């Protein structure tokens, strides 16, 4: 079977419209349309993509051109999958929204836009879809908690997409008026550097990378819970897509730094990526809101993608691509788990929550698997990508980048453990004993699927590695990741007699399983233990009767946070003061030009004249 990609885009739009119409009549039915729609789209693209049935012909959207590329397919499958998974949550949340029908429609529209971005071969229409995603997703945000987040989002997104536009127009200019996507690679000289800077800027804003990250925590915290998942798992990946085009596709930018064999441009990106990792980690550690914490973790994971790409080696780029998959799955699962909690508990603030695990064990397991993947611990997907990125960084011998990656990796233990301890574990607070119960089956379903995929990507990376290799071939890159049976070949030093580093995820998973089995045997053969109440704990001679007093969840990492709390608002203050400067400039101009005095105009006219005549310019 063969279908054009435009059919999918149009179908997504049609589903959106249908969701709107039906949603006007019945809220939930409308949101069920989003499930049907995004599942259909995901299924269609994935099936046809793997069987080679997608074509780029245009019969209706004749103003633009599509091309089916492997990397476009890669991103499209991931993003539409994330949308499909999240869409299961929509019916359960739809009642909270002010404009439910609109929500369903825009949800589908932003998916359509994203697909358009990934397959457009006309750069101008790539931008068209890019902007389309911006404004459709823009109106999803204020349906959540805060309205301000929307303007932050738009400010940064617009800055990002206009940077992209500028880059595109530069390419257009340099390529004699052609908007074809292949033009990215053929620019040279100063134009190349400018294009690189601006495209990276666009990637940075979308990915929420330092120093253009401010919107990300704001939006992910305040957007409706399913939308946060979509942003973190799906729409953020648009940034990774642009980053791939800019950093990898354009090749090395600037001169080569000899000692580490890196191009200057890529070096800058790697440094900023490293800063993103560190910044995101430090900020995530000190958050009290679970969603905000995950938001900063998304940011820091974006940094890994950038670091991976900027290495320009097989390991690095493949690691970055793999990280996109692993992070999309894990962070969507984590956000969904938190959303499931928020739905019944009504808050995501960790200091208000505790002991949810006793009522929502499945959700807990989903979250656990997700964070294991995010922290890069085997046997989950995140481990493999981080391993490859580490390999690449060591290969280049970049110490400072290595410090950042390690720091982010260890730091992620710290922050992902926070919600685990404060939100799920600990004392079961009395207010949740009655009200909270496990999420319904249709919410658990996508979460479980995501968890299984997390494990799958962590145990059997073969399918994705193959896909990544196909992407390399498709992009005409000279990279390749060799699979040695079930093992991935890593960094090869070229030193004689030393083979490549091998990683066999399947083996690790098996051994881990054996270990757990042995431990379980030890546990089971020993005497059965007596079950006692949570309140029955050691309190050094005191008697405590309130659960809250036995629940340590506020300022969890206080000693660590104290060390850097002075510096955390630097970037935010920078943007705030930038906004203030604009406002001041505006107020100044207003004061200067717009007093209600008739002579002001005359004065300026005369002043301009006098200036010109006196300055002998004329």
């Amino acid at each position, binding site marked *: 079977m063969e279908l054009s990609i435009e059919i999918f885009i149009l179908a997504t739009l049609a589903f959106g419209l249908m969701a709107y119409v039906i949603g006007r009549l019945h809220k939930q039915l409308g949101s069920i349309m989003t499930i049907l729609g995004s599942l259909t789209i995901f299924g269609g693209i994935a099936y046809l993509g793997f069987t080679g049935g997608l074509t780029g012909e245009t019969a209706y959207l*004749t*103003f633009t051109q599509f091309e089916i590329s492997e990397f476009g397919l890669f991103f499209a499958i991931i993003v539409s999958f994330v949308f499909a998974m999240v869409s299961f949550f929509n019916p359960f949340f739809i009642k909270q929204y*002010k*404009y439910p029908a609109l929500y369903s429609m825009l949800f589908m529209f932003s998916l359509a836009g994203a697909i358009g971005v990934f397959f457009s071969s006309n750069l*101008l229409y790539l*931008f*068209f*879809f890019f*902007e*389309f995603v*911006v*404004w459709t997703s*823009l109106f999803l945000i*204020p349906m959540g908690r805060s*309205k*301000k987040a*929307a*303007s932050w989002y*738009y*400010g940064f997104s*617009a*800055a990002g997409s*206009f940077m992209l*536009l*500028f880059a595109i*127009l*530069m390419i*257009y*200019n340099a390529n*004699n*008026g052609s908007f074809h996507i292949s033009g990215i690679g053929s620019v040279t000289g100063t134009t190349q550097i400018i294009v690189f800077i601006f495209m990276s800027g666009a990637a940075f804003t979308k990915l929420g990378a330092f120093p253009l990250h401010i919107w990300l925590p704001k939006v992910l915290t305040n957007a409706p819970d399913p939308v946060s998942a979509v942003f973190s798992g799906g729409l953020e990946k648009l940034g990774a897509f642009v980053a791939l085009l800019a950093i990898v596709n354009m090749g090395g930018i600037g001169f080569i730094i000899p000692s580490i064999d890196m191009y200057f441009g890529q070096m800058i990106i790697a440094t900023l990526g490293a800063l993103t990792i560190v910044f995101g980690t430090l900020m995530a550690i000190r958050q009290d809101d679970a969603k905000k914490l995950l938001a900063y973790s998304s940011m820091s994971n974006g940094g890994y993608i950038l670091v991976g790409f900027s290495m320009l080696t097989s390991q690095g780029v493949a690691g970055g691509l793999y990280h996109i998959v692993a992070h999309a799955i894990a962070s969507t699962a984590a956000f969904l788990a938190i959303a499931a909690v928020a739905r019944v508990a009504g808050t995501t603030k960790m200091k208000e929550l505790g002991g949810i695990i006793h009522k929502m064990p499945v959700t807990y397991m989903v979250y656990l698997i997700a964070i294991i993947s995010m922290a890069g611990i085997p046997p989950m997907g995140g481990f493999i990508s981080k391993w490859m990125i580490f390999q690449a960084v060591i290969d280049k011998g970049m110490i400072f980048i290595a410090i950042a990656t390690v720091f982010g990796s260890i730091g992620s233990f710290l922050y992902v453990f926070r919600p685990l301890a404060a939100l799920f574990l600990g004392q079961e607070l009395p207010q949740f004993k009655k009200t909270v119960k496990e999420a319904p089956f249709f919410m658990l379903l996508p979460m479980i699927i995501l968890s299984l995929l997390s494990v799958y990507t962590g145990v059997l990376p073969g399918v994705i590695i193959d896909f990544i290799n196909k992407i390399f071939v498709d992009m005409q890159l000279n990279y390749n990741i060799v699979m040695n049976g079930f093992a991935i070949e890593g960094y090869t030093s070229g030193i004689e007699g030393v083979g490549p580093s091998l990683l066999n995820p399947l083996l690790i998973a098996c051994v881990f399983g054996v270990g757990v089995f042995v431990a379980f045997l030890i546990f089971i053969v020993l005497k059965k233990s007596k079950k006692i109440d949570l309140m029955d704990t050691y309190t050094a001679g005191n008697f405590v009767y309130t659960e809250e007093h036995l629940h340590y969840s506020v300022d969890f990492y206080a000693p660590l946070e104290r060390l850097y709390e002075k510096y955390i608002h630097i970037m935010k203050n920078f943007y705030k003061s930038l*906004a203030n400067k*604009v*406002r*001041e*400039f*505006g*107020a100044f*101009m*207003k004061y200067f*030009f*717009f*007093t*209600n*005095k*008739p002579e*002001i*105009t*005359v004065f*300026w*006219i005369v002043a*301009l004249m006098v200036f*010109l005549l006196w300055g002998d*310019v*004329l």
Partner: protein
Amino acid sequence: MSAILLIAVPLLAAFISILVKKVSPYLLLLVSLFALVYPFFMDMSDVIIGGFDSPIGINLVVNKFALTSLIAVNGLFFLVVAVNIAQYKKLSSILLVALAGLNGLLLTGDLFNLFVFIEISGIAAYLITTTNKKPLQTFNYLVAGTVGSSLYLLGLIILYNMSGTLNMADMATFVEGNGMYTLFPFLLMFIGLGVEAKLLPFNSWVKGILGHSNNLSGAMIASVYATAIALVFGKLLAGVFQIEGTLALIIALVLGITILAGEAMAYASTKAREILLYSSIAQAGIVILLFTVGLGAWATFFAIANGVSKFILFGVVNRLTEEVGSDEMDQLKGSFVNNKLIGVSFTVAALSILGLPLFFGFVVKMNSLIGFFEPDFVSNLPGGNFIFPIIILVASVIEGVYFVKLLTKLWYKDSDVKVNFTPLFKYVVVVLAVALIVFGLFQGEVEELVASLINPGGVFIWN
């Protein structure tokens, strides 16, 4: 049929309407409808008035550009009038004069004649703004406008003294050969028109007028007049002025500051009307910038798209202000909760101004920007190739932030702001919003339309 009717009929009707006051609103509606429909049937030939041949006598230039602008301006004019006439019956005669003046502006091919029409439409505008009940602000407008047109006249006379002609086409050929001597008069004319076109720093009147505008004056000045003046300015910039050297530097400076300061001022405002008015200052800057660098065809449509959007925006905001009694953003919170249709149209208009895809604004903004980057494009402004696109883009970012802020405020709040819109107003606004979407969707057709404004040489034609 002759184009002169477009000027003569409204003028005649204006006289009649004074005599028969009762029918004057109907007369106005009829005539403005006529002015909207008539251009579709008009001959595409220049009209010579008084029997003198072109360089000597006054002539009306009828071409694609004039037709496009006539249809757009008269269309907007008709809608403004149709929506508001019930409330402002007394102004019928004045509006007829305004119509005559605006049509004259767009048609005339004579520089002095242009001055006359500027004054006619100007005086009508002053009178329209008296409905704001802020005589002092109107007085400011009058002083600024008069000084502006006086400067225009001064520059014009100096030019006449040099060239001995007042005809635009003739002047253009004269200017070709004597570029540097014409700097000073051009600058005078530029400033004079700049006053009306809301360019910084000659636009102190705007705040007083639009900041206190009502349904009629807001839409009239910000939408109809702004479009007309921008197009006229464009006609002169593209056709007559030869911008280079010092003049280019000054104009670049003025335009750059206008665009950026306009957006910054809008960003600094908390009142809905002020936001819109400062934003229209910036938009005017962009339009004139496009005309100046020679991207006239798209600038035309930029001005029109802006006019349509501003009609919706000012119309809605003024109506809200009237009901709520304040135009502070915080007071208007949640206005659209009960007026979804109006809200959606408002949103569409705002998004179109921001240049977001699916809407007319996107097509226009994109193509204008592409114009800067055409491989063979050479800007006549210093740094025009790259600096100005960046300025436009930066301005768009600032613009986006405050518009989104405004939109979220208007859409979300649990308070009950109840505002009633007349059905007619609703229809008009919705139709315009749909038009913005339709033009946004059929980009290819729009591009063809625009291409027809450009003659084979690639130069934007005005005559």
